């Protein structure tokens, strides 16, 4: 950078704006990916690998700055990002002014390498590209022969591409915005809040072949099957609580838009679907839920309609009326609208970034993958899953004390004939 030249800055995409606006003292939208390797992690090698990768991923080496009307990104010149010994309470808040303003963190513990990302920077698909590249650089640092490219790796010897930092929402926004009515309040599934800052994480490990066999036997995909199990568990849980009025059970299912709108962006490019069942209408057997989820997810993955939905978000972001509101007033407005449109109408989130693919040279060194959706705005669990090799890992994480949602979920899988292994950071389990 030339002396005296202002660093290059860029605006946030609409998902980035939202997650930044939700930032509070006790809350940040953070998620974590972990790779459990076959050997104990060498922190120094990890630091070198991260340092080697950062110039190739400028979109992750940024800090959030506050403008008069919007937050924006600026390159972060502070030393870092932090590479720290792991803690028992993951996905801690990331403040814009602390830790040199870094919005990513690396952790190491025994054989586990973890990457935590603030959601304004990137979605799961983008972060996994970054994580995969860091892992390959790390394995190279510890003396293994690793390729520089292929299977979702970005070549560290090449300069970063402009496309990797594009706002894909804006690029693909169409002519017509699709308006949808405000969805109704869903069953909230709230538990007793734990002490600040506790995140109860429960992970279940399943053999993917067995899971696939069960799902195929029912004529659905693994994602559809797990979504249906979660919905059924929540429907039954609500019924056991005997509420005065039963609310619909609705899930937020993020989908990766890159499958329909080709883009090399490493920034956010997702949209959430909302499968919703109203149990006050009557009894829903598991087969009914499965049937609904199977068809709903296929029906809603409609390219034109999805474009209409995110076009609306892009329009919203560009509306002059919203633009001229100062950022300190805009944040509470956006936080409130997120509460009404993004928290109230959902019972839980379930995200499945799918199978973690790596070049075959890396395969012998990774045992399994883990994913954690960080703290939610409310004390309730959110689910995420990732598969690697034959291990499907499903995590329930939340700030609530109770473990009943995850208990019923994993018991359901066990009853369906899928063996489950459970790990948790809960203190009472130790």
């Amino acid at each position: 950078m030339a002396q005296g030249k202002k660093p290059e800055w860029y605006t946030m995409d609409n998902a980035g704006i939202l997650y930044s606006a939700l930032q509070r003292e006790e809350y940040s939208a953070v998620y974590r990916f972990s790779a459990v390797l076959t050997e104990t992690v060498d922190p120094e090698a990890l630091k070198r690998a991260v340092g080697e990768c950062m110039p190739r991923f400028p979109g992750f080496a940024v800090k959030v700055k506050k403008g008069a009307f919007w937050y924006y990104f600026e390159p972060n010149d502070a030393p870092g990002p932090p590479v720290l010994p792991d803690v028992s309470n993951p996905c801690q808040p990331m403040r814009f002014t602390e830790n040199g303003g870094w919005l990513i963190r690396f952790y190491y513990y025994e054989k586990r390498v973890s990457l935590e990302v603030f959601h304004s920077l990137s979605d799961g698909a983008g972060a996994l590209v970054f994580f995969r590249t860091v892992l390959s650089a790390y394995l190279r640092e510890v003396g293994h022969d690793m390729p520089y490219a292929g299977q979702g790796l970005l070549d560290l010897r090449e300069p970063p591409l402009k496309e990797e930092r594009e706002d894909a929402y804006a690029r693909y926004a169409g002519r017509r915005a699709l308006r949808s009515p405000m969805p109704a309040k869903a069953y909230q599934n709230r538990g007793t809040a734990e002490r600040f800052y506790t995140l109860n994480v429960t992970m279940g490990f399943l053999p993917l072949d067995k899971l696939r066999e069960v799902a195929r036997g029912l004529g659905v995909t693994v994602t559809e099957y797990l979504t249906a199990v979660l919905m059924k568990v929540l429907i039954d849980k609500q019924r056991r609580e005997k509420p005065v009025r039963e609310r619909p059970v609705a899930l937020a299912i993020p989908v990766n838009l890159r499958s329909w709108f080709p883009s090399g962006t490493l920034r956010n490019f997702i949209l959430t679907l909302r499968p919703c069942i109203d149990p006050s209408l009557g009894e829903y057997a598991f087969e009914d839920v499965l049937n609904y989820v199977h068809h709903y997810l296929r029906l809603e993955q409609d390219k034109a309609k999805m474009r209409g939905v995110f076009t609306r978000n892009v329009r919203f972001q560009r509306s002059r009326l919203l633009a001229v509101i100062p950022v300190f007033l805009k944040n509470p407005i956006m936080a409130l609208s997120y509460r009404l449109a993004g928290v109230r109408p959902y019972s839980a989130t379930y995200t499945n970034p799918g199978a973690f693919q790596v070049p075959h040279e890396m395969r012998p060194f990774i045992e399994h993958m883990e994913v954690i959706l960080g703290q939610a705005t409310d004390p309730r669990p959110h689910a995420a899953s990732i598969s690697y090799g034959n291990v499907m890992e499903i995590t329930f994480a939340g700030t609530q004390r109770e473990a009943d949602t995850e208990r019923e979920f994993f018991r359901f899988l066990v009853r369906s004939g899928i063996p489950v292994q459970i790990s948790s950071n809960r203190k009472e389990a130790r």
Partner: protein
Amino acid sequence: MPYCVHCGVKLDDDARRCPLCGTPVMDPNLVRESAAEPVFPTQAGEVKPVSRGEAALLITVILASISAACGALNLFLRAEQVWSLYIIGAMAMLWLWFVPPLMDRKMGRFLRLLLDTAAIALYVLIIALVNHGLSWYKGLALPIVLSTGAAALFLALVLPGRSILSKTALLLGTAGGYALLLELLIDRFLTEGWEPGWSLVVVAICAAIIVPLIIVRRVPSLREEARRRFHI
């Protein structure tokens, strides 16, 4: 490797209880390998509270500069009156309301309420001093401010954790008592006697509502009926 007898899931080697249902892992034959590292780190990370010093400083600077500007302006504009003291007093009151809670996060509600009441009393004192009205301040304004603070403190002490019925009854009871006290203070200041008049109307209305509330609260069948009829 242990299994949970209730959930049927496999557990970590070092698990002492099932994380899902809390059932203890009991196997007399199990030899725990103390050397094995737990699957998750045991050391919890600290999350430091955000420093609010900057916000406190900003508020202080804004309030102080408004006070200074008004004080300076007072020297030239209508210099025969010390009108700027009203504004300076208001700024001091705002400062006492907002800055100490920002500096000390652990400040209790009661201390805060006391401080807020003291700030109001101080502001009214400034107004009284400017108007040479120390007699009405001592006789009327200060007792009213203090009794309002006491009523608020009482409510802050007794309200939390009670049912809606009890809360309503307590609020109305406090309102009735406050009205009586207010009339007493006004009468004593104006006529040095006490002839309860309008406050009795308030007390009567409050009592007329409180009595049924207490009965409904005490009789379980009525309470259940009220809950059924008025549930939202």
